[in-house]
């Protein structure tokens, strides 16, 4: 049962092989038993999940069900969930019970989905390893000494460890794709604005985008069908029509033009990673695709400009966490300034504080033009690079990450080293483009198999194309079926 995809589980619910309550109980039992090893959940919502499952079974009985009714999933703890602690991985919100639902949560509720719980994440989604969480690091199911990636590391680990068939994530600079790659699952960051940000606690508003993290592209399409759509509560949400993301999954890839940016295959790229990605591209050629070298000349500017823009927005977005209305408040504040300083000083972790300080500096009087404005100009150049390249090709491919999962603690002392982890992913957030990561093989490190992710980048609004390209690969290969060795035995 735990190896089944969402699509397969939906069939089981349809045929009555099991009820949603049975499915939910099984998953809850498995989470409670196994998650100690991974720490992928912050909050397990047993009671709410079972109530939702009961309601879903009743709804199915009336014939009023959607494709999603009764399917259990997990949500990144960045989505506000009514009546449930929504911590964003921070001590600052450890006591915050959201009085309202994020639009994404609301949409899953309306579809009749069951929420198993809230998954662990880097504090306020700031991190690439899940080590900045107030609730402790998440362990990669492929090697529990290693990180699962971040910031949606809890969601990625939960799906990889078969603690949930699918989960939501958010991606500001790679936070869906990088952990998906490191945990061997499928993740898609949609076009900016495709999924409502309302109720999704903001890190960097112009970059944040929610998306699905699943076992397969087919499941990602199912999730996206629920998540996507215009939301009047989010001024930046897309007003364009929302297509059926499952409709084009099986389109043949003959003649597909794949662009290979030379900047995504640098000389110092881990050769084992490069080999797995090259092999995947060979597989695409076998499916009828044509490859072509393209160039994204401003790639090297992506990390520095991202690390101005994202912290600048974050420094403002996180101002609301001031100890006044909700969240952490220091003990016995002397006066207002003491209340602010200690509530924020004690409530935020080191990485969050670092980014608030960087962002505050970048926006300061006299520095704005040199930093923020310059970074925005670079952002336009990066976007133009993609626009140019995507005039020549249908999709762009490359590795999702330069390295496989690294060891917990390995990069915590060097933020720049950690930031380079996102070198291939964050350009897309700057450009607002959709991107996907799918498993394309494994490399061996210290006797452990570690997954490798293939990144697929498409044009604006081209999620259907990306899902189609990913799905056809998954029809022809079985990398996406690989289960972490420690997990296999237990899920039988």
């Amino acid at each position, binding site marked *: 049962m735990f190896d089944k995809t969402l699509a397969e589980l939906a069939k089981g619910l349809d045929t009555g092989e099991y009820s949603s309550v049975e499915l939910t109980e099984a998953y809850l039992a498995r989470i409670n038993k196994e998650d100690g090893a991974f720490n992928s959940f912050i909050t397990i919502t047993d009671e709410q999940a079972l109530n939702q499952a009961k309601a879903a079974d009743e709804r199915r009985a009336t014939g009023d069900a959607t494709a999603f009714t009764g399917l259990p999933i997990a949500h990144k703890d960045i*989505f*506000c969930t009514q009546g449930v602690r*929504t911590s*964003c991985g921070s001590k600052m*919100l450890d006591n*915050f019970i*959201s*009085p*309202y639902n*994020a639009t994404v949560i609301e949409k899953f509720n309306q579809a009749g989905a069951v929420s198993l719980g809230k998954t662990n994440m880097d504090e306020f989604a700031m991190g690439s390893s899940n080590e900045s969480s107030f609730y402790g690091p998440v362990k990669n199911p492929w090697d529990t000494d290693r990180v699962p990636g971040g910031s949606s590391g809890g969601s990625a680990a939960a799906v990889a460890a078969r603690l949930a068939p699918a989960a939501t994530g958010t991606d500001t600079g790679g936070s869906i794709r990088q952990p998906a790659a490191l945990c061997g699952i499928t993740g898609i960051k949609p076009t900016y604005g495709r999924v409502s*940000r*309302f*109720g*999704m*606690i*903001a890190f*960097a*508003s*112009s970059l944040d985008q929610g998306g699905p993290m699943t076992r397969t592209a087919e499941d990602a399409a199912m999730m996206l069908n629920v998540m996507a759509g215009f939301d*009047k*509560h*989010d*001024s*930046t949400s897309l007003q364009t029509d929302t297509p059926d993301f499952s409709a084009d999954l099986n389109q043949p890839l003959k003649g597909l033009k794949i662009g290979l940016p030379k900047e995504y295959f640098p000389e110092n790229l881990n050769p084992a990673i490069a080999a797995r990605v090259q092999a995947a591209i060979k597989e695409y050629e076998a499916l009828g695709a044509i490859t072509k070298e393209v160039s994204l000349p401003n790639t090297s500017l992506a990390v520095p400009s991202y690390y101005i823009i994202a912290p*600048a*927005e974050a*420094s*403002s977005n*996180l*101002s*609301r*966490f*001031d100890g*006044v*209305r*909700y*969240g952490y408040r220091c003990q016995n504040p002397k006066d*207002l300034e003491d209340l*602010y300083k200690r509530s924020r000083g004690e409530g935020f972790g080191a990485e969050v504080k670092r980014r608030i300080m960087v962002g*505050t500096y970048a*926006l*300061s*009087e006299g520095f*704005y033009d040199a930093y*923020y404005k310059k970074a925005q100009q670079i952002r336009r150049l990066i976007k133009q690079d993609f626009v140019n390249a995507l005039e020549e090709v249908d999709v762009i491919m490359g590795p999702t990450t330069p390295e496989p999962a690294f060891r917990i603690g390995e990069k915590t002392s060097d933020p720049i080293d950690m930031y380079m982890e996102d070198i291939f992913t964050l350009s897309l957030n700057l450009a607002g483009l959709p991107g996907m990561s799918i498993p394309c093989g494994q490399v061996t490190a210290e006797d452990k198999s570690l997954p490798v992710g293939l990144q697929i980048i498409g044009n604006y609004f081209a999620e259907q194309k990306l899902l189609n390209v990913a799905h056809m690969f998954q029809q022809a290969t079985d990398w996406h079926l690989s289960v972490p060795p420690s997990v296999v035995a237990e899920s039988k």
Partner: protein
Amino acid sequence: MEWEAVIGLEIHAQLATKSKIFSGAGTAFGADPNTQACAVDLALPGTLPVFNGEALQMAVKFGLAIDAEIGRRSVFDRKNYFYPDLPKGYQTSQLFYPIVGPGHIDIELADGRHKRIGVTRAHLEEDAGKSVHDLFPNMSGIDLNRAGTPLLEIVSEPDMRSAEEAVAYVKKIHAIVTTLGICDGDMSQGSFRCDCNVSVRPKGQEEFGTRTESKNINSFRFIEKAIKGEIARQIDLIEDGGRVEQATRLYDADKDETRSMRSKEEANDYRYFPCPDLLPIVIDEDYIEAVRKTLPELPDARHARFMEQYGLSDYDAGVLSAYRDLADYFETVVKAADDPKLAANWVMGELSKFLNSNNLGISNSPISAGDLGGLLHRIKDDTISGKIAKQVFEAMWNGEGSADEVIEAKGLKQVTDSGAIEGMIDEVIAKATPQVEQYKAAEPDKRGKMLGFFMGQVMKASQGKANPGQVNQILKKKLDALCD
């Protein structure tokens, strides 16, 4: 040394939208604390702003009314600072691309001079909540009802040179926003408040002196007092060898003085940057023209029309056109009375006197414009005299009914029967032999003045009801007949 003041004003006008600028919460004043604040206003994690199009329309109306450029693409920026009544830790405002660009208004001064004052810009922003410091021992309360109320911040050029000019400017802006119906103009509730930037310089000097800003002044009188006081303070300071420090000051109406709130060194770095949660507002010519069609007649245009159409003096037309309520009232009276000058005299005279002494605004007048017009109509058609009309007015003010009802009930209808009037006159002449003799003895050109006595006697005899014109005419004829 002769000094000259330089004054620039920032006016915050609360826009009269039904809901807040970025949320669906209501904007009514006076609700229980925190009952008009939704998740967005409380800045709960994850909430996002959605711009209220009604506020845009109002801002564009204002821009058109002051003949300003309208920003075809305006952008919201975040002004970052920490304060407990600022829930998000930033105020959403417009720094770089405001909705209203340069415009101007003309003010009239007491000596009849007109002066053009530049409006640099007007931009949309959200109001903060309120901190309450005197309700809970050792703690402050926060009321977020006002948080997110739309404001139009109207920034003038430093074009004013005296408190009088500043007040005339503020009154004109006040008249414009209330005429447009985009602000209720209620200064006591903070719907319309003013920050005054004041500096002084030796007359003839070109560059500006160091300025201070006095914040949130909420009455015309306080604006005048605060500016006068600040000008005097600065001149005294400089003449005593001191220097004006650039600072934000607070006007204390009780003490009638400004005091320093924070100096330049303590000033915040607001770290403005474009708000990534809101799209730029892009508007086209069609939108602007559609808004232009909804503009009511503005005070200046009405002023000119009142002179032209009703033959009013510049002064009377100015007073009657300054406020929409008053101007509308006046025109309704004109229509019912069919006599613009009579209407102007009564609205600016008797009615204003009663309203002022009862501390009422025109919208709260117990006598409706139609009823006042009805009263004036009875003067015009000689049913009553002007003097009796004041008596009827007072009865109407006290709720005793319409003019016709009061005239009927009190039997105040004017006597126009010339037979009856002649009878009264004969009686008066018969009793006033000495005065008649004086009249007869007087030089013919002095007699006119002496007519007053007999007029008074006849009017008294008629209890004021005799038609004064008729009395005058008949009286003159009869007395002159005695002289022959």
